[in-house]
């Protein structure tokens, strides 16, 4: 099957005011290229922002592996896995939405953007459940790490391997709360980015409904898509690092 291409004009018609073509750009192609480069540079800054947290993870896991091995059972692999699938699906619907915008398929892009948005809601919903369990069990960041003060039976219900839970709560390694500091910092910052992404998707959805986009001008959908894929990419690494510690 041959790849599809479609053409966008590199030249603007003399004197005609093109809607959504900024005055300092000569053509839609120039505007699209500039916007895309701008978004990739923004993604570069996001990668460097998260890099600090990945560094902290690496430092503490390298020097205190016992904390990480101990803590992994308090993260529900099933919920984490479902969240991973949800985000991957949202990336698929987002990429498809961009494709629809490129091909002038307004209804398609609207439906897919809505689906993406609901996937994001689902992700945050599952995270809410996880966070609630942690709060109820005292499995919080370092200064509030107090699982000993909670009912063991209640804690056991929340996690898939109740057998180990009881003895492990008693025998937490020193400074075990650091794991949860890292967990909340990483998933918390990621969650904020999901929220920001939902706002951006909402904005692009509104513009799609208004009919702003066509095969000549679809940049904003493309750029929000790139941002959304980055949110997915970060989770693709967070999931094994936090949930799949053996």
């Amino acid at each position, binding site marked *: 099957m041959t790849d599809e291409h479609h053409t966008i004009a590199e030249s603007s018609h003399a004197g005609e005011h093109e809607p959504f073509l900024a005055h300092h750009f000569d053509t839609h192609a120039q505007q699209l290229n500039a916007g895309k480069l701008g978004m990739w540079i923004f993604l570069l800054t996001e990668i460097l922002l998260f890099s600090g947290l990945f560094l902290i993870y690496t430092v503490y896991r390298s020097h205190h592996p016992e904390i990480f091995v101990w803590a992994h059972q308090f993260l529900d692999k099933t919920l984490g896995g479902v969240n991973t699938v949800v985000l991957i699906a949202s990336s698929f619907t987002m990429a498809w939405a961009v494709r629809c915008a490129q091909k002038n398929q307004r209804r398609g892009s609207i439906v897919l953007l809505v689906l993406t948005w609901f996937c994001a809601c689902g992700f945050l919903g599952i995270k809410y459940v996880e966070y609630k369990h942690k709060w109820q069990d005292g499995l919080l960041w370092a200064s509030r790490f107090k699982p000993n003060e909670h009912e063991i039976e209640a804690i056991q219900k929340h996690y898939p391997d109740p057998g180990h839970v009881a003895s492990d709560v008693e025998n937490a390694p020193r400074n075990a709360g*650091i794991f949860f500091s890292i967990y909340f910092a990483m998933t918390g910052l990621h969650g904020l980015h999901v929220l920001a992404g939902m706002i951006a998707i909402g904005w692009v959805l509104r513009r799609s409904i208004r009919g702003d986009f066509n095969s000549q001008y679809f940049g904003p959908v493309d750029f929000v898509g790139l941002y959304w894929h980055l949110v997915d990419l970060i989770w693709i690494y967070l999931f094994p690092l936090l949930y799949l510690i053996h």
Partner: protein
Amino acid sequence: MAETAYTTADNDSYLTHDRGVLSWLFSLDHKRIGVMYLVSILTAFLLGGTFSTLVRMELMYPNKPAESVVAEKTLIPREIFSKDNYNKFFTTHGAVMIFLFIIPGIPAALGNFVLPIMLGAKDVAFPRLNLFSLWLWWSGCVFFLLTLLFGGLDTGWTFYTPYSTSTETRVVPAVVGAFILGFSSIFTGLNFIVTIHTLRPPGMTWFKMPLFLWSLYATALIQVLATPVLGITLMLLGVERVLSIGIFDPKLGGDPVLFQHFFWFYSHPAVYIMILPGMGIISELISVFSHKHIFGYRFIAYSSVAIALLGFLVWGHHMFTSGQSAMASMIFSALTFSVSIPSAIKVFNWLATMYKGSISLQTPMCYGLMFIFLFGIGGLTGLFLGALATNVPLHNTYFVVAHFHYVMFGGTMVAFLGGIHYWWPKITGRMFSEFWGRLAALIVFTGFNLTFFPQFLMGTHGMPRRYYDYSSLALEHPEIATYNFLSSIGSLILAVGLILILIYLLASLFNGRPAPANPWGGATLEWQCSSPPPYYNFKSPPTVDDPYDFTNIHYDPEIRGYIKTTDNS
């Protein structure tokens, strides 16, 4: 046949095109945004300078006189402020100067105005993002003001843990302010990179770009790569204060040296954000005021990018005495020597440019020459600090303070002043008084050296920085009291010089001679449009030539400016 300088029809310029405060606050015109930045940033400079003057006044005399001397009469009281207030003053001086003034400084205030015109473009790539950057600066400024009003900050601008996680002062609003300012910086850098990549006119290849643009490009690279790490550092510090997550707190299992790695990974490259645009200005000034093609264009261009990249490899040289391992310290010390090389290359090329040039010592050139001298001293003293063995006794002494003031003030600020004077006619359409310009430059030079040169000596004699009182040290080393006194007098002279600059520049807005399009004889594109430029910059894309070719640029005494003639004239 001589071509007249490009002038606007019907006297409409970017200043008059739209009227009203809202037309400025919501303007998407890079020139207006640049002017608003210039006013804001210079106001921040005055604020930061006020605090440094207070610090120097406190340090003019040791708090207790030497016992062998009958208590002598002093010009001002020995102890003016409490030690807690003193800590807040030097912290505020540092934080305001660094985050509000010098990091945004040249790129935001001059770069925004000049870059698109010098490039031959109608605006930056993302004008709305540009305005947003300005609003973010203002927001960050508000948070800093809130910090000041509600108790101040006393951690030093470096926010080291564990003190910053436990002090009672207003760390959180300061950290929020710095975070917001970081994003202002990131978005400016992003904008400049995309502008330079995508909005160059036909004929403007990378190696036809003026060197100021190369320096802004290299600066922008650092802004987008380094600042996010500051972002996460400040975020973690803020969360630590509010929630005690313990990442940097040893009591909870955290690591305070790790904080310093995080902090300096940004803050060392940040100093190259500060100096690179200044160096770019100097390349322009030296060439134009020597009426000679810049020597070694490609070397200077490449050295800008080299400084940007090498600057990321050396951050540990701020941490030699902090608990960093010997192995890491040795690696960082060795790497630090590499970053001096491209800076030296620039200095040699500037000197070679001047050689056999026809030098005019107008005010911008005074600052250009001042830069080479003062930055030379500052840069060379950095070598003592980068070398591991000599760093250990000098760390946290006034030697460090003198070094960074020579490069930041004697370097960046002097270049900023040079740039302001150079582009003042273009931005405002007025000429300033050359007499007052040169006189103020002399006063600034004198005041600066009197303030900071003694500080090198203070440092080698052992005076620590950030100290409220040095009485016990002055007992054993009475020369330290002399150096401090001289330094404080110098700071007053410096203040006089700077205020003088403010006065005559403001006066020029009312009394200054209307400026021709090209008062200095520059060959870069901004001198082809009128002073001040029309709001659309260029009616049609300008012809791109060698930006340092002055052969067709001649002085016209009638307009008291330069015009570009064609080859046949």
